[in-house]
Each structure stands twice: as structure tokens, then as C-alpha cells.
């Protein structure tokens, strides 16, 4: 197994675990945590492909992708947690099985 394949396998594992968290847990905040893990796995893929490309020395494209992706993920986390807290204020629950209506 080549080094690039090692990094990609780790990224695939983290992605699969994040997907499992997002699909199986009942707490809305933990679903957001799973989404963060999936985004991080994608970032690891971007940086690994950038490092093992032939133009890594004179091109920053892959790392810029990862940096912008980190910024967008931070914005996503803030909005998602704000939504969860707003929902919790109305219905006193963060249980996804109990979240059956969005109307205040």
C-alpha cells in the first residue's frame, strides 16, 4: 500500500464513521458532529491529493480548497447549532425522533 492510499483509507474510515454517527445517533447536536467529521475527511483527501500531485511545489490549489472548506464548515457549524438551540427553546427537545414539526 502506497502512502497516498494510506491517507485515503484513513479519510474513508473517518468519513464512514461520520456517516454512521449522522445516521444513527438521536441527538441533533451529534448529527452535526458527524457532519463535521465527514467534512474533515474530505479535507484530508484534498490535502493528501495536493501533497502527492506533481505540481505541489508551485501550486497551492489543494491546500486553498482545504482552507476555504474549513471556513465554510465553521459557518455551517454555527448555523446548525443556532438552529438546534432555537428548536430546543420552542420544544425543549433535541431528540430527532421527536422533532416532527418545524412550525413554532
Amino acid at each position, binding site marked *: 500500500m502506497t502512502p497516498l492510499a494510506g*491517507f485515503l483509507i484513513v479519510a474513508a474510515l473517518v468519513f*464512514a464513521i461520520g456517516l454512521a454517527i449522522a445516521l444513527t445517533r438521536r441527538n441533533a447536536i451529534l448529527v452535526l*458532529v458527524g457532519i463535521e467529521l465527514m467534512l474533515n475527511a474530505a479535507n484530508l483527501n484534498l490535502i493528501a491529493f495536493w501533497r502527492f500531485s506533481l505540481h*505541489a511545489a508551485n501550486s*497551492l490549489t489543494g491546500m486553498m480548497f482545504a482552507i476555504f472548506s474549513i471556513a465554510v464548515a465553521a459557518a455551517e457549524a454555527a448555523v446548525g*447549532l443556532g438552529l438546534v438551540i432555537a428548536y430546543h427553546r420552542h420544544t425543549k427537545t433535541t431528540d430527532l425522533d421527536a422533532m416532527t414539526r418545524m412550525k413554532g
Partner: protein
Amino acid sequence: MIHGIGIVFLITSAITVAGALAAALLKNLIHCVLCLSITLAGLALLYLQLDAQFAGFAQILVYIGAVAILVVFAILLTRGAGIAEYRNVSSSWLVSLVIAAAIFALLAWAVIKSFPTTVAGASPGTTVQSIGSALMSTYVLPLEIVAVLLTVALIGAVIVAMPESGAAGKSIEKGGAQ
């Protein structure tokens, strides 16, 4: 230079995957988020091994410093509400696990089938100065768009999470009283 799969890579990837697994399996939500921050630190170490120093330290600053703390605050603000202790996973957990395992199998199969002989070139020697000048020249438009996106998203998050005042808040309180 990255010559092969070394012991450092094995240790850091084991820490990363173990943290993610613990975040998936633990029952206490705070413990889950602490394990998530271990995973994020492991990913930052992997970035450092890939000669992406700036991305690694940005990962530590943004994720461990901000996102993990934000998630802990959100858990503490919504604590003790509606999470049944006896059943932590959703009713369709078996199907979800099968889907996740299938996706991992597909990804791993694709990775192992391809890239038979890829070796890394010389270290890129990326400095913060070159990243900064690239952000200010080639990537200035995406940088501005991300700046506007962050501003709008954070203001929007505050507005969404803010308690309603006036008529809307009163009607909701009435509905809750009924």
C-alpha cells in the same frame, strides 16, 4: 519527503480513527465531543505530515478552538431535555450501519484498486508568506466570498438563536401554556 507508511503515520491514524469510533459509541455527549476533538487533533497531525503546516494549525485553531467549544456549549445549553437514557440510537440504526459500511467498502476498494505506485515529490516548501500572497492575488475573489459568507452565517446564526420578542414570542408562550 514521504517514503512509505511510517510508524508516525500509523500512530496518528490510529488515534484519529479511535477518537472517531469513541465519538460514535460513547453515551455521554460531552465525552463524545472530547473524543471528536482528539480526532480533529489527529487530523491536524496528519496535515502536518503532509507538509501542510498552515492547514494543520488552522485546523487546530478553528476546530478544536472554536467548533468543539461551540458544540460543548450547545450540549450544555440543551442538556437534560428529551434524550432518553435507555435508547441512544435511532430506530433505523442497523440499516444506517450497513449503509456506512457499504460506503467505506466502496471507497476502500476504489483506493486499493488505483494508485499502484505513487510517491511524493520533494517537499513543497510552502510558507505562510506564499499562502498569504496567493490569497491576496489568485484567490482574492474566493477569499472575499468566504468573508461575506462567514459574516452572513454568523449574524444569521445569532438571529436564529435569539429569543423572539413582541407578538411572536407571546403567541408561542401561549401555545406552550395550552
